[in-house]
């Protein structure tokens, strides 16, 4: 077995419990939110009134929160789920190099015949794996329980102007697309933490910069939507493509590649900077 696999395997093994807890926690939040659909669907349309709430709930044009897919998007997949996956991603991205470096475990590993390159790629792979596992558990959890909450059934929707239409129930495909786009956001944020941690070896800096990136991006996006000012700045926010595109409702777009590109860039830059610097102690 290659050393990269051994390092990856050990890192995953050390995170068995936390991966399980995060996966179960995220899934419980999703299932608990889904359980409110029967009682909220009749009033869900009113939640999106006002530009602030509309922005927070990701209620762009054509998104009706009283439909099964619109409800899941507005009340979980556009906010709670990506936030949780971002938090997980940032925690993992910070731990992958800077966290272990701060704990002193990275230095001992590097006393063995392994290269920094092997560690950099093994840890990045570990971060992706945990995020994917948590996303899959969430997908399965929501897919299995959603029939209990009428989310899999077609429903008749009455618009504000009184017209009625039939909305299809949520499918596993919808959950997959919603989960995939949320996973991409989590990965992008985790990659920022990874990059800063690999470049500096400082856990606090990695955590702070990546969290700031996530929170400031969200605040910036919401404020710009509400006020109409500084709209151009929202291009620097990961939420712009994520919420504007509402992929769970409208389908996948190429914009999902932005966080993937951010992750790939962070890996390459972080790896190169990690190769060139002193380990912190």
């Amino acid at each position, binding site marked *: 077995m290659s050393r990269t696999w051994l390092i990856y395997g050990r890192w995953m093994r050390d995170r068995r419990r936390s991966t399980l807890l995060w996966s179960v926690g995220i899934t419980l939040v999703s299932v608990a939110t889904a359980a409110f659909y029967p009682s909220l669907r009749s009033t869900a349309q009113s939640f999106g009134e006002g530009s602030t709430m509309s922005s927070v709930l990701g209620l762009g044009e054509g998104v009706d929160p009283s439909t099964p897919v619109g409800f899941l998007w507005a009340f979980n997949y556009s906010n709670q789920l990506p936030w949780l996956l971002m938090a997980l991603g940032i925690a993992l991205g910070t731990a992958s190099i800077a966290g272990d470096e701060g704990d*002193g475990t990275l230095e*001992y590993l590097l006393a063995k015949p392994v290269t920094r390159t092997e560690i950099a790629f093994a840890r990045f792979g570990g971060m992706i794996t945990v995020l994917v596992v948590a996303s899959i558990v969430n997908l399965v959890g929501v897919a299995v329980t959603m029939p209990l909450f009428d989310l899999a059934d077609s429903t008749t929707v009455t618009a504000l102007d009184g017209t009625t239409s039939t909305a299809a129930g949520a499918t596993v495909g919808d959950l997959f697309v919603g989960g995939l786009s949320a996973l991409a956001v989590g990965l992008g944020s985790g990659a920022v933490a990874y990059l800063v941690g690999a470049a500096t070896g400082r856990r606090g800096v990695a955590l702070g910069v990546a969290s700031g990136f996530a929170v400031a991006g969200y605040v910036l996006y919401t404020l710009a939507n509400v006020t109409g000012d500084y709209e151009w700045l929202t291009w620097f926010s990961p939420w712009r493509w994520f919420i504007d595109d509402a992929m769970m409702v409208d389908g996948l777009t190429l914009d999902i590649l932005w966080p993937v590109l951010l992750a790939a860039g962070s890996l390459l830059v972080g790896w190169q900077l990690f190769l060139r610097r*002193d380990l912190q102690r």
Partner: protein
Amino acid sequence: MTVIEAVALTKKWGDFVAVDSLDLSVAEGECYAFLGRNGAGKSTTARMLLDFIRPSSGVARVLGGSGRDPGVRARIGYLPGDLDLPKSITGSEAIHYFGSIGRTPDQAEVDGLVERLGMNLDRPFHQLSTGSRRKVGLVLAFMNDPELLILDEPTSGLDPVLQETFRDLVAERKARGATVWLTSHVMSDVEHVADRVGLIDEGHLAQELSMDELRRQTTGEIKLTFPTPPDPTAFDRVPDVSEVHVDGVELTLHVDGPVTAVLARAAELGAVGIRTRQRELEDIFLETYADREPER
């Protein structure tokens, strides 16, 4: 063959110079003790040898190559001053994991080390005491039959029996041709295992001496025993004698030159016993750092 070689090795962080133009050479099969006060630059030197940190200038060569080369590190057994392993890893998992990464250890060798050090194989690392963690570190450092051992405070936290076991292990590895580079504040350890000692002070190599040289040195202190309490002024006219003290039938003096005249005078006075105190490593350590501030 030179196993460790440092040429004008320097490490600076801003204005702070941790290691300053260090020249060092350790031969194959030698046990070299690198001593100094806390913050003197010992661990920084070790970290440069292993490529954890890069020199600001100068060169560090290990086993004929660079510590950056995994092939070189495969031949090194390392014990850091503070061993940190993943919290949940057990002793047996650590042996398996690090053994898989490096040279595959001989199982009989591992079993022997575990037994001699009394290492706990089943408890997670974070539940182990300081001494037990040290045992894990020693097993991991010695198990791959390394050609070079870099040991930072190896006996810190070990009881006297295990300290003795450690000394035996070093002697055995040396007998197999391994080179040992260690730091320690336990002078008795160093005196037992080292062939040569380097004292580093504020990043400089202040002094280097072999243990053979050390053993040949005496402090200049002579203790004479007489049948009856001697006169403290009896050695006043003997050249180079100072610090004469009498305690009962014992007279202690310090001679800073040839002892012939002292011995002649002692015989004349009817001395029945004589002892000289050998200079110990601790004396040299204390002399070297006598005028230094407590700790940087």
